């Protein structure tokens, strides 16, 4: 049955794990946001030799389980820190999602904007960074934010490659003290407490950017 004493004992360990969870989420999202943009831009190059293999790779990565991707990289690439592998795999997996978001955002920029940039003979870099992206990004921030939140809830997958994030620590505490009830309830509560304000924040952001 539930024991407050055990819960109090386990909380510091679980919160420490939560730090790792946040770390993985922050760096994983950064990678996903940057790499996703890279993929989206590359997919607009005219060469089929680039776009077709890229499309196939994106389709493959996003239709297969992240847990098995984690295992595969972990076992096949020895000597790397599990946390680094975890961040890289999560980041790449979510980059395939964010690239679709960017693609939709870029496609939604009116054609006239591109033509105007050509008419002003802007170099491609300035066309992208001064004309297209500022307009595209505005609309897709909420969608990107939702992926960050769902990545946050998928970080427990990292425990399968021995990363000591929150659920891994909860599991360890649970088995050491036979306190699975306290351990996993606390972990669930921490997730809940962390994700409620973020979803409220996202809703506000969505409303603000809509105008």
């Amino acid at each position, binding site marked *: 049955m539930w024991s407050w004493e055990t819960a109090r004992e386990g909380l510091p360990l679980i919160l420490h794990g939560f730090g790792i969870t946040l770390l993985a989420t922050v760096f994983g999202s950064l990678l996903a946001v940057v790499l996703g943009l890279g993929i989206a831009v590359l997919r607009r190059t005219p060469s089929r030799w680039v776009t077709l293999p890229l499309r196939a790779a994106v389709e*493959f990565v996003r239709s297969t389980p*992240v847990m*098995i991707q984690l295992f595969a990289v972990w076992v096949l690439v020895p000597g790397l820190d599990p946390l680094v592998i975890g961040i890289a795999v999560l980041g790449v997996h979510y980059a395939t999602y964010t690239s679709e978001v960017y693609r939709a955002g870029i496609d939604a920029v009116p054609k006239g904007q591109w033509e105007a940039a050509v008419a002003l003979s802007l170099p491609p870099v300035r066309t992208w960074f001064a004309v297209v992206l500022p307009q595209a990004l505005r609309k897709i921030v909420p969608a990107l934010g939702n992926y960050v939140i769902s990545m946050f809830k998928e970080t427990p997958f990292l425990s399968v490659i021995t990363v000591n994030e929150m659920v891994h620590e*909860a599991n360890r505490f649970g088995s050491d003290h036979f306190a*699975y009830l306290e351990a996993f*309830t606390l972990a669930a509560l921490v997730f809940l407490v962390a994700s409620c304000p973020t979803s409220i924040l996202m809703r506000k952001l969505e409303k603000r950017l809509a105008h």
Partner: protein
Amino acid sequence: MSSYPYAFHAGEPLSGLTEFTHSLPSVGAGLWVTVQATVLGAALALLLAFVLGFMARSRRLLVRGSSRVVVEFFRGTSLYVQMFWLFFALPILGFKLVPLACAVVAFGLNYGAYGSEVVRGALDAVPRGQREAAVALSMTPWQRMRLVVLPQAWPQMIPPFNNLLIQLLKCTPLMSLITISDVTFQMDQLRSTTGDTATAYLLLLVVYFVLAYALTLAMNGLESVAKARLGQPAGGRA
């Protein structure tokens, strides 16, 4: 629990390909478990999505509010934690579910919560005039829903449901962590007996890719049928 109960079983490396063909039956059995869990989990999720989605549109604050709380709770706590809670913590409270039931219930609750937003959105998106016309024809509320609103909302739900279904499928390897011999478990056994890690994992990824693709095709078919019934052009997605 060591973080992964069977990842590093020592095994005599056997000649790769013959061992792979020998193990086809067990991999097939694992595949069947994965398919079962996906289908049962999706069925439970669909049911919950409709119940919670309809509740979210209720005029009564209590009904609407309780749907909101349930949805936020199951979306806010990770699927991983929910499944582990059902498997490890629930027995301590005196309820013991068989492992497959833990997995199916966790999938159903989690994706049912996400799906309820889809149902709510699609019902809200049916034009007001349609309901008003149904009222004008003095249809009962049940007829209105069954004959007018739902047939129009349903095709709108299918593409987002497909996304959720693929996500559910991609989460099923979690089952192998709670002692279920799904395809991930079986393939990992094979990996440790053959020692051929690259082949085993690549094969496993291909298995999931094919499953995901088959599900998408089926859902596209369903969407075409639903749209044809409304006399709309069937625009399937690849």
